[in-house]
Structures are given as structure tokens and as C-alpha cells.
């Protein structure tokens, strides 16, 4: 398994640090069910056997945070994006909804 970093190209796995599921979101602390939401945010994972969106940090490279989409049953990587771009897109989408 090698990860193609958008900045550095295809690099060996040992240059990266893994930080788990990229789909969890820090909940709103003022929500009425904040307690349940925070428990789920910290401890509960979908843990699918198919495509998994996950955070990787290119620590021995450009220091970018990446969102990698990977089929965990086969280790096939189907997409790599800068986490920054993913976050910007989400902010944009939220604005449109609002």
C-alpha cells in the first residue's frame, strides 16, 4: 500500500501517520442530546468493510493532512484529497444550505 499525496506524489506508507475515520464531526455542545452525540463522536464507529474515508498525516513529507478513501477489504485507495479542501467544501455547502 502506497499513498499518492497531492503535494509529494506516490510515497511509502511509513511516511504517514494514521488518524482514523474522517467522517466523524465534533457535535454541538449546546444541543439537547449533546451527551449522546459526544459519546458517539468519541467512541462509536461505522467501521465498514468497504470504502472508508480516513485521515492520514504526511509527517515525513509535506505535513499535509489528507482525506484518503480506501476500500479496507482490499487496501485499494480510490481517492486522496487535502483535508483542507474537504473542510473548505463543507463550509461552502453549509453556507448554501443556510
Amino acid at each position, binding site marked *: 500500500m502506497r499513498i499518492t499525496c497531492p503535494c509529494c506524489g506516490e510515497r511509502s*506508507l511509513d511516511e504517514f501517520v494514521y488518524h482514523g475515520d474522517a467522517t466523524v464531526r465534533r457535535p454541538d455542545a449546546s444541543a439537547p442530546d449533546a451527551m*449522546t452525540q459526544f459519546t*458517539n463522536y468519541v467512541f*462509536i464507529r*461505522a*467501521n465498514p*468493510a468497504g470504502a472508508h474515508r*480516513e485521515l492520514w498525516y504526511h509527517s515525513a513529507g509535506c505535513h499535509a493532512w489528507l482525506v484518503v478513501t*480506501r476500500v479496507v*477489504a482490499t487496501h485499494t485507495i480510490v481517492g486522496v484529497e487535502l483535508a483542507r479542501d474537504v473542510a473548505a467544501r463543507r463550509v461552502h455547502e453549509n453556507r448554501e444550505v443556510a
Partner: protein
Amino acid sequence: MQSYSLFSVLRESLRGHTGWRPTWRDAAPKTAYDIVVIGGGGHGLATAYYLAKKFGEARVAVLEKGWIGGGNVGRNTTIVRSNYMLPGNIPFYEMSMKLWENLEQDINYNAMVSQRGVLNLCHSDAQRDAFARRGNAMRIHGVDAELLDREAVRRMYPFLDFDNGRFPIHGGLLQRRGGTVRHDAVAWGYARAADSHGVDIIQNCEVTGFRIQNGAVTGVETTRGFIASRKVGVAVAGNSSRVMALAGRHMPIESHVLQAFVTEGLKPVIDGVVTFGAGHFYISQSDKGGLVFGGDLDGYNSYAQRGNLPVIEDVCEGGMALMPRLGRVRILRSWGGIMDMSMDGSPIIDRTDIAGLYFNGGWCYGGFKATPASGLCFAHLISRDEPHPLARVYRLDRFTTGHAIDEKGMGPHPNLH
């Protein structure tokens, strides 16, 4: 059941070994059972055995999607120990150790239980202090532990690299009652014993769904048809999240791959289990002579039963730092298994919010040693609908209530436990 003894071996050797019978029946599924256990690994088979033998349950089935012993029970590095530190863990793993000590008599099967000692090495003063603390915690609970100094370790294993520039060996914590058990013999032994008490072991039978009515389970859908049962126990290790998702539940679990390695067969080299304390590496020698060793998880979510090169390199570097003579040995095979890594590194044996659906999982990379105790406690839970006193802490809701059991102090990061 055909009983195994010295006499039966002698008799069969005189008859040209023509009298041996299959070890368990290849059962076909019935339409209904009192209890269905999903997963024919060590934990599922042990659960079924204790359900039948100890709790007198007469209509029990184990459903296995492949063949029994094909999962982690046949892939682990066979180490058993009870050198834990936290109050909830020590009594549970010590009960497991006591069950191992009596297992072969109990199930009339040679599981090659070998109490050859587990030695954890320390490489700094701070680590020795931590080991002293752990050893004391164990001894307070009546578990054997000995803190060895450098010279005592040298007498046991003179060939280790004591003066390694970065990781000199300062001493170690030894549990003499720890050791190894032949992993697939555990699966076969429990299968045979469960079968002889009337349990149906059904292979090639994958559970594909649950039938749930009014908040209670009424049976399971399988590749071999619907099977009705008002009590269903899930013990599917690395597939915990997938199976529980069939019941619409998400778990505090991630699946990760752990690799292991075996070398070509050698004459006796190392007679106990030794772990390196400065990296992650542990080693023992199988009865066939191969050196069996492993290290860390690969560290990313995985359902592929194989890992990647960086961890192989890391494990081998650890081995060379500890035992330089390893460099001359050739690795024969490597493989991987899928670990059900829980969010605090400790297991779960509990009811779920669905009546009649029980869950056993989150065993991480250390569930083999727990097999007998896990089976006994899960059987207790399912049969009496009440947790076993020694497994009371392994609750599913402990993450909500703040009672996580984090032996390693890593926080909710499964890849770091």
C-alpha cells in the same frame, strides 16, 4: 464420544489406526434452537461447550461462515498470560489462566498447554518501576509475578543483546505460569467437547441478517436458511461491526490487521516467551521448531487478512535489537488476522438493547488467552441473562458512563492500544 487416552493410542496403533472416528459431527441446521452462537472461533466454540456442559442447555448451535478454526483462533501467536494491571482485568484473565491449567483434563483433548513462562523485558529505570507496580498489582490479586534483575535475565537467556547501545536490558517481569497453547487444538478440542454434549456445529453457514420483533430477536437469516432462536450470541471477533450492523447497531470497535511470522524450523533455541520492551516485538518457539514472532498492529482500519511492509520491517528491527542471532534465520511465512479493536483496548461481554441478543467482542490482539474465561462468562450471560461476576466490568455502556478500562492509557485510539 471416543475417549482419548494412552490406551486408545496403543490400541489404534495395533489396529493400523483404522478405528478413529471424525472428531465432531458435520451437523446440518435445524429450523430452531434455544440458543444460537454466531462465530466458530475459539470464543464461540468455548461458549457453546460451557452452555451445554455447565449450564445444561440442550439445544445449542454454533454457526460459522467458513470452517471452524479459520479465523483468529488459528492465526494467533498462541501466547497465554494473566499479567494485567487494572482491577477489572486481573481476575478475569487469571480465571482464564486457571481454566487453561485444567483444560485438557476437562475436554479430554491435548491442547499442548505449555507453561513455559512469559518474560517482559525492561530497558530503562522508569520501565522497571512500571513493571514493579504491575507485578505488585498482580501479586495482590494472587497472580504469580517475579521482578528479575539483569543477571537473572542473563542466566535465562544469555544470548540476548544486554548491552545494546540504545536499549540495554535492565531486567524483566516474569510470569512463570504464562506460556503457549496450541491454537488450533483449542478450536478442535472445544468443538469436539461441545459436539459430544449435543451442540450442532454448522460450518459454511454465514449469518446474513437478524429477525427482530418488538425489540426482541426471534432468529437469524443465514446462507442455509432461517434459523429461529430467542437467544443469539455474537462472537465474531474482527467481523463484530459487520454482524452487529445487520441488527442496525454501531459498535465502539474498529477492525485492524495484526501480522505474525514464523521462521524455518530450528533446534531448540528459546524455551519461553520473551517480549522486547523498547519496541514492539515478541518471540517464542513452536514445538515444530519454528520461531514464532510478531509486533504491532499495522495501524489502519483493515478487513484484509494481510498487512504491509513497514510493519514487517519494524518487527524485524525489534527482533534484531533484542536477539541479533535472528539475522541468520529465514522467515518462512507471514500472515495477518483482523482484530476487533475496542476503543479502550478491553473486551465487551454484555447484553445489547435488543432482547435476546448478546455480544462478545473487542478482544483486540489478546483474545486467545481469554478463550476459556470468555466462553464461560458468555455462556453464563446467555443462559442466565445475568453477567458472570468476573466479567461484570465488560459492559457495552461503559463508554457512555465513563468506566472505560484503558490498560495502556491510550485514549479512544484503537490503533494505539
